[in-house]
């Protein structure tokens, strides 16, 4: 039992840094031995996944606080600690990252140019992704948030498509602008907390506790600025309309695995940040701007869907569908209802699985035909029946067919939003319909019909490695669709705590508002 407890204290460090360790070891491989390099990368990613299972196996669903805590002073004179922990929200996002990374490695099997650097960057990216979700120190969080840009920048810029340099640069600069302003806000929060309580620390739980207890009271105008800085960083990352313009470029140019991780995990950092930091730290301003942000989310849902409909390029279509789906997540978060928040987290996971799957599938036919234009395809079902079947499955999950994973999240979000802001929910629901339109229309043009393009005559169906990449996602799609409680229950306590924080402030602010006239 003792060793088990020790492991609990170290598991987050291990899960976060095993990929980095693997990346460092990978540096010593002979660069010509591509087989060994990718096999090793896969082993590292799988080991990380198995280790991350410890988190869910030993996760105590009844507790709302952070678990598997580790808290070691790092730069004590500044109040920076190596402080990590997970709750019911982040534990699943870590699993999402550790599941998608091995699949991304498998999907990169055909990468042969500079394979060593490629897998080094991919493993470093995994450390960055996990690090963002486990950090409880604001400095540490910012560190992972920014560091993670570097490997992604290389993955897009070196192994991407034709306009890869433009896309990589745009990706970094957009994310940076939001990020650096968040850094200033973090610093300001640090000093506000330090001056109010006397302890200068970047510890998120401590700052949050001071806010909740009233030991730290932030001037409303300053709170607004702080909220804006955090919000901008997260909104660009999500990306929320109108900050989404980097996403289609990055997705189209990124290699398949890059797109999978970008859509699957990186975008969730933005919505995670909104839930973890924006709402609890600045509940009042969140409430005030809730309607406005929800409006942006709804516009994003409809706009993303409409633009997706007219895309000639498969990847761009999926990219815009992400803008639409991520709008649902933001809508759920800013509905300030339990169902909305639950749905948001659920949709984060579901979107990661379905969209990750879609990008994998698009990557498979791109590898065969070196084009992603919908008009180049047609009638693929005749030559690639297995592919067509899986594609249909993932498409339906992305649309949100009841019984599959996408339905639960969207339903909960709409349910929660309907209670809070019915008008928004009605408009957002059209996004569900539109998603069926553009996805099924795309599916019809690519898969059904006769083969019109002679280039598609000789296409092979997907092989065993490709099937292996897809099977875990198919299982998850069904599992998440049928047994949503397996996923919802562990996050209950954390969501209730978040709701408690958001709700109490809301009633308080209402009370003070009604008292003001007297």
């Amino acid at each position, binding site marked *: 039992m003792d060793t088990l407890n020790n492991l609990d204290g170290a598991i987050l460090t291990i899960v976060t840094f095993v990929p980095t360790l693997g990346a460092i070891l990978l540096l010593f491989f002979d*660069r010509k031995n591509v087989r060994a390099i990718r096999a090793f990368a896969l082993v590292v990613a799988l080991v990380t996944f198995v280790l991350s299972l410890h988190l869910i196996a030993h996760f105590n669903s009844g507790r709302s606080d952070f678990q598997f805590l580790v808290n070691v002073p*790092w*730069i*004590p*004179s*500044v109040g920076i600690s190596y402080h990590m922990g997970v709750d019911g929200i982040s534990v699943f996002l870590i699993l999402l990252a550790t599941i998608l990374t091995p699949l991304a490695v498998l999907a990169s099997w055909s990468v042969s140019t*500079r394979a060593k*650097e490629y897998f080094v960057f991919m493993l470093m990216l995994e450390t960055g992704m996990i690090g963002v979700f486990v950090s409880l120190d604001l*400095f540490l969080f*910012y*560190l*992972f948030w*920014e*560091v993670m*840009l*570097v490997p992604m*920048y*290389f993955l897009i*810029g*070196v192994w991407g498509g034709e306009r*890869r*340099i433009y896309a*990589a*640069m745009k990706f*970094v*600069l957009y994310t*940076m*602008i939001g990020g*650096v*302003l968040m*850094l*200033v806000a973090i*610093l*300001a929060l*640090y*000093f506000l907390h330090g001056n109010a309580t006397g302890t200068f620390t970047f510890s998120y739980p401590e700052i949050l506790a001071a806010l909740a207890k009233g030991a730290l009271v932030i001037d409303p105008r300053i709170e607004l600025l702080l909220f804006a800085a955090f919000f901008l960083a997260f909104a660009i990352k999500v990306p929320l309309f109108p900050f989404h313009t980097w996403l289609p470029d990055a997705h189209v140019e990124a290699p398949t695995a890059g797109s999978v991780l970008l859509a699957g995990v990186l975008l969730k950092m933005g919505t995670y940040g909104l839930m973890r930091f924006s709402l609890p730290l600045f509940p009042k301003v969140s409430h005030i701007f809730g309607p406005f942000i929800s409006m942006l989310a709804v516009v994003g849902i409809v706009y993303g869907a409409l633009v997706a409909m007219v895309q000639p390029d498969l990847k761009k279509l999926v990219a815009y569908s992400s803008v639409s789906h991520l709008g649902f997540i933001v809508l759920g978060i800013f509905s300030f209802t339990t169902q909305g928040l639950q749905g948001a987290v659920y949709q984060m996971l579901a979107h990661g699985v379905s969209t990750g799957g879609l990008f994998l599938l698009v990557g498979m036919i791109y590898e065969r035909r070196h084009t992603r234009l919908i008009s180049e395809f047609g009638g693929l079902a005749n030559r690639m029946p297995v592919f067509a079947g899986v594609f249909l499955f993932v498409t339906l999950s992305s649309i949100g067919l009841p019984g599959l994973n996408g339905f639960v999240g969207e339903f909960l979000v709409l349910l929660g939003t309907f209670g809070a802001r019915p008008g928004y929910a009605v408009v957002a629901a059209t996004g569900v319909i539109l998603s069926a339109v553009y996805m099924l229309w795309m599916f019809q043009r690519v898969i059904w019909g006769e083969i019109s393009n002679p280039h598609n005559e000789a296409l092979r169906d997907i092989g065993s490695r490709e099937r292996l990449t897809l099977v875990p996602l198919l299982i998850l799609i069904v599992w998440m669709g049928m047994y949503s409680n397996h996923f919802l229950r562990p996050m209950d306590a954390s969501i209730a705590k978040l709701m408690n924080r958001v709700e109490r402030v809301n009633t308080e602010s209402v009370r003070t508002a009604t008292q003001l006239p007297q």
Partner: protein
Amino acid sequence: MNIPEINLYSILPIVVLSVFGIAIMVLEPFVQTEKRSALGWLALAGTVVAGVAIVPMHNQPGQWYSNLWIVDDYSTFFHALFIFIAAMTTLISIDYLPREKMNHAEYYALLLFATAGMLVMAGSNELMMVFIGLEILSIATYVMAGFRRTDLRSNEAALKYFLLGSFASAFFLYGVALIFGATGSTHLISIGAATFLPDLQLPLVYLSAALILIALCFKVAAAPFHIWAPDVYEGAPTPITGFMSVGPKAAGFAVLFRIFVTAFPLIQDRWTDVMWVVAALTMILGNVIAVVQPNIKRMLAYSSIAHAGYIAMAFTTATNRGGSAALFYTLAYAVMSLGAFAIVTMLGRSEDGKVQLTDFAGLAARRPGLAALLSLFLLSLAGVPGTAGFAGKFFIFRSAVESGMTSLAVIGVLTTVVSFYYYLYVIVQMYMKDPAEDFGDVKLTPALGVALTIAAIGTLYLGVLPTRILEWTAGAALNFLR
């Protein structure tokens, strides 16, 4: 008349550097041209001995030589920094000089003298001493900038630096003369005390402070007195460019801090206002203009201007924490900038010919190690977390926010985003373009290997475990700032 007590220990590093410098000049005629690199190693030995000599110096705290000379943690820190810079520059130069067929040992002597000049600046407690240090440094640097005698650009660099530098020196002297007229002293502490006397002529103090500030802003290449820097940095031999981007800059800041905090506390609110503008302008101009530079030496020159802006921001706060952050940043900048210049020196090849950004195309495919190292230094210069550059910027922004200069911090972080563009553009060339050549003639020599190892380890160490160095800089700044 009192004969001041002579305390050789308190100036031991300067003595050591000067002795080694003179020894190198005397020895040169007796050494064959092919073997002159040995004198480079001798110069390196000189910096090591001087580094060791800091210890006895540090054990003699207080004011010496009629209070002209001060030994405190602040001057010790800068002694260590300048000697480190000299050692790194020597390592970078040892194989550069034979390659460029200008293996003259007076190069090393000049480098040691310039370093001695910086040490004089760091420990001066009096304006004329500062001036002497400044001139020892400047004259040696003018010569080194023009060291490639047959190259027009190098000559242009030297002449430009000399003419404009002379103006700056004159400004400084005018400033000294005026403050002497106003307070009757050139001693910093006496000036500081005299400014609080009732019959003070305040306009003279303002004018004097302004002139001194202009002169030192010129030396550190802060906007709007930065115009000379890009041409000089481009024309000078690459190792000297590296030296100039960190050494004289740090020395300029070292005296800037000491003079203004010790001698002009009376008008602190005014000069912090001025520095606010200087810092903002320097960060904006340096970073924005760097974006369009096609030549890496010019690009690094503008980036060096931008970094002066960040240090100036820390200075603007006029707090202990700001001072500590500034000191930390000078060290971090020295480590990463020298690392970058070591690689640029190596890749420049004959006559520093290959210094266009496009000359770096495809480096990663041919020399992955070098490309990775240069990427590390560039990412650190840009300020990616986990590197020295980020830790340094973080501490500076922290001190700025603490002092309520949030808007300056916002300007700082936004210009950092701009800087990402041009640093990443070099990485674009190295990693994302097809190789134009095979880089087979790029030689990684042992001396450069040592320099790069030190720079790389330093960059990561300062970035990941900054605590000890931060404690050091905090202690060094504490002794004299408010």
